[in-house]
């Protein structure tokens, strides 16, 4: 007869493999650190509007001339020895961009009309009010005929990886908010250069008006992160307590150790494969904690039951044999549960994109690691802990069965 499969035979191999994997993760953590996304690291945020150029203006006349745009109305202010003169070029008086350019020319500026557009919505970009010089200043006008969708903007920025693009305000205004993660040492100029070069290649540099640009801080500050780790540790201690009371201490210690392994194995996976860390990574780790402790307890419950049955029958209890037996008895259940969770999440890992794909990949790995640790590591830990804290002594009372109904 073939000897039944004994999971404990592989305990050193399993523990060694897991140890190495986690060690690799720890080394990478200190050498390279996490590949933090915009949720955890700083980012660069830019608000742009895509609007065609109406005309350009230069001014080399007397004094200084300033061109301003407020509420879509263009103003021209000239300060010279003769005093200050101010002209507001109301769109009702000058209905097109060409009319405004002509009016500015009449005031002594040199203008060049690029396209004739309704003048009602001049765009006030970064750098307005602009002091005019021999360098031409662009004046763009927002129209509702801009042929560009948010998908085009996302497409244009796709070389940057995980760029975050949102529409701002009404759709037809073509205002977009763009956020990208910045690497260490990258300046605001580097970041804006990268973004604007890609946008210019797609939509033409002269049609892009930068409305606002700034560095943004991470969504999760380090204090929030610390709080979460603390909460996690408290949760682990409480689980330890519950399992110690319901089972025995050896079970509790083994399951907590297995849980630690799962969290570390997931983080190592993220570190080794250089996956981006975002808020969804936290979510994935949390889900796996719930999944994995559940898995381990089901197997331990079987061990407890088998030990108890053996004690009642008065046969000599061979803890190791019972542990192996319990793992085997739970095997169908382990496979089925892993299967139902994996089929739920794998389609998303295959078909999804961006953050959500990462989330699904993390979860897939977590489910595999969790199932592995419940079946190979937790029994191995129990093998060692049961030497120190025996599990084969009669406990006083034990519920045999119970039903809600």
């Amino acid at each position: 007869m073939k000897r039944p499969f004994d999971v404990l035979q592989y305990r050193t191999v399993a523990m060694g493999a897991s140890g190495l994997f986690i060690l690799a993760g720890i080394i990478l953590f200190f050498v390279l650190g996490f590949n933090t996304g915009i949720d955890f690291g700083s980012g660069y945020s830019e608000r742009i509007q895509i609007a065609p150029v109406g005309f350009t203006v230069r001014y080399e006349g007397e004094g200084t001339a300033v061109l301003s745009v407020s509420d879509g109305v263009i103003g021209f202010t000239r300060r010279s020895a003769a005093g200050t003169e101010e002209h507001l070029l109301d769109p009702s008086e000058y209905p097109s961009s060409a009319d405004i350019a002509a009016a500015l020319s009449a005031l002594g500026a040199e203008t060049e009309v690029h396209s004739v557009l309704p003048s009602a919505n001049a765009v006030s970009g970064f750098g307005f009010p602009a002091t005019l010089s021999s360098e031409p200043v662009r004046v763009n006008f927002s129209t509702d005929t801009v042929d560009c969708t948010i998908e085009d903007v996302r497409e244009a920025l796709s070389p940057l990886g995980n760029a975050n693009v949102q529409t701002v305000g009404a759709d037809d205004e073509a205002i977009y908010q763009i956020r990208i993660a910045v690497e260490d040492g990258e300046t605001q100029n580097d970041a804006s250069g990268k973004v604007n070069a890609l946008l210019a290649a797609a939509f033409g540099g002269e049609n892009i008006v930068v409305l606002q640009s700034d560095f943004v801080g991470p969504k999760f500050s380090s204090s929030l992160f610390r709080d979460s780790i603390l909460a996690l540790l408290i949760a682990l201690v409480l689980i330890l307590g519950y399992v110690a009371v319901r089972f025995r201490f050896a079970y509790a210690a083994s399951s907590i150790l297995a849980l630690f392994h799962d969290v570390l194995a997931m983080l190592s996976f993220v570190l080794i494969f250089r996956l981006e860390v975002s808020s969804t990574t936290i979510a994935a780790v949390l889900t796996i904690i719930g999944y994995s402790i559940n898995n381990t307890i089901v197997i331990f419950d079987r061990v407890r039951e088998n030990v108890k049955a053996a004690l009642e029958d008065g046969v000599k209890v061979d803890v190791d044999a019972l542990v192996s037996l319990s793992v085997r008895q739970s095997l169908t259940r382990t496979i089925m549960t892993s299967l139902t969770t994996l089929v739920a999440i794998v389609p998303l890992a295959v078909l999804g994109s961006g953050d959500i794909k990462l989330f699904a990949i993390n979860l897939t790995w977590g489910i595999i690691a969790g199932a592995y640790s419940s079946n190979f590591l937790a029994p191995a830990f129990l093998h060692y802990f049961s030497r120190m804290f025996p599990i084969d002594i009669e406990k006083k009372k034990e519920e045999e069965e119970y039903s809600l109904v």
Partner: protein
Amino acid sequence: MKKTGRVLLVLLVIVVAALLLYPTIRWYFFVPESTKTAAAGSNENIRDYSRGQASRGVRALTSLLQEDREAAIPEDFMYLRKDAEAALKERGMERPEEWTVYTLLSAFPSESALFQAIEDHTRSQLLDAKKLSGNVLQLGLDLRGGMSVVLEADTASYAASHDGEVPSGSELTAMLQDDIDILTSRIDQFGVSEPDIRLQGSDQILVEVPGETDPERVDAFLRGRGSLTFQLVDSSLSERVNRDYMDNLSRAFDEDGSIIAPSYIPSGYTVAGYYAEDEYGIEELQSFVVLRSEVVLDGSHLVSARMERDQNGRPAVNFRLDSEGADIFYAFTSANIGERLAVVMDGRVKSVATINDAISGDVQLSGSFTEEEAQSLAVILRTSSLPIDLIAVSEQGVGATLGDDSVRIAMQAIAIGFLLVILTMIIYYGPAGIIADVALLLNLVMMVAVLSALHFTLTLSSIAGLVLTLGMAIDANVIIYERIKEEMAAGADCYDSVSLGFGRAFWTIMDSNVTTIIAAIVLSILGSSTVKGFANTLAIGVACSLFTSLFVSHLLFDFFVTDDGRRGVWLSWRRK
């Protein structure tokens, strides 16, 4: 428990779930898009819109009347019949045989009554929709976008309260970091709204909240603590100021909108406005109140504030004072019986009450508080004050961060995953798999119902997490089925196997799920934002799955398996 009792309990759960889901379903499927858009604005916008609708409506109806007196009432104005009937009844007139434009319009005593009726209708529709929008399962920033608010540090007010001292760049950033933590807890009371709050540049905070663009919501989380005070009212001076000012408001305010104190107001007194909200929830000046500058009690002595209704059914706020505050208040009220006391919030008088008795611990104040105000006050009392005040510099709607395509594909993938879970169970367990799937569907409905009752925000990752939780929830059924199979293999008959299987599996399932729930509850109490939201979903999911697997599927089994051995159930497609 008897079978009927069990069936009734399951039905009860289904009914409750349906009730909890009702607002969400109504909002996403039955509120017209135009109403949603109109309701998304501020209350001022809603007022303008309603009045616009009313004047358009009056014009449309009167021009229709000129064209054809006997024309039928247009569908859009059918609701006016009710108002017309009420107007007729009030004037002691009979309702007409047939409703035409003429009979409808002549029922209203004046054009302004008609205007009022249309305005009231539009207003209540929009305000209802607005309220509803705050009570449904929200879609997160990644799926649908929301409101983006840029807040700027108010260095001027900081300098004013710190002897002209202006914070340095790094001090400012540190204070803003603290502000961010406080804002996060204010916005994200239950960890369910998934806001995105970041430092922008060195002196701004960027806040993105899922949901409609609604300036009132911004005000609600910006209001600081300590702006709530109790002060005595001087009645005779108040009367005199009202006589002078009420008919000529332009004299009462300076350019900045502050109230100019008349010269006869002695030092030690201040003039404040008494504001009450109109039907739109917009604060309107009602009268002027002269207050003693000396503050009896301020917000720091309040421990809690709760919205309640007074005897007349008006919203009132119940404040609970700490013991020191209660002593101060008791001493003060017993010395000032008959005087009038004002509650001042953010410099505006919200309520004036006559002191009838000495009051200590609990204070109930009825006045012009709305439910939202009482609630936001309670939230603010629970969180600490902002180290540096913030001013909103821009509020704008922002679109979803994920593209339509990627959302669509991800949703398809999630649906495929869910179907695969269901199929796997049927393929492996046969007819019993269908029972597990029924329990699973009920689990899904229960989870979504609870999440929507908590006004949860659904992001793409939380939807994926939900499906995974369902994949895990099926585990309980798997454990039970494997047990039943074992019992059958050991020779028990179908009926005994089922009851033994459920019995044996009970503690296995309990122990494994309780450990998960412990982890989830701790993380939901101590964790922050995303952690909290996810922990809540996990706890709800596990709790629901305990009910569906141990209770509902057992009930279903009992329907199919009888103890006389005539009916059984197969746990696989192979029949022995």
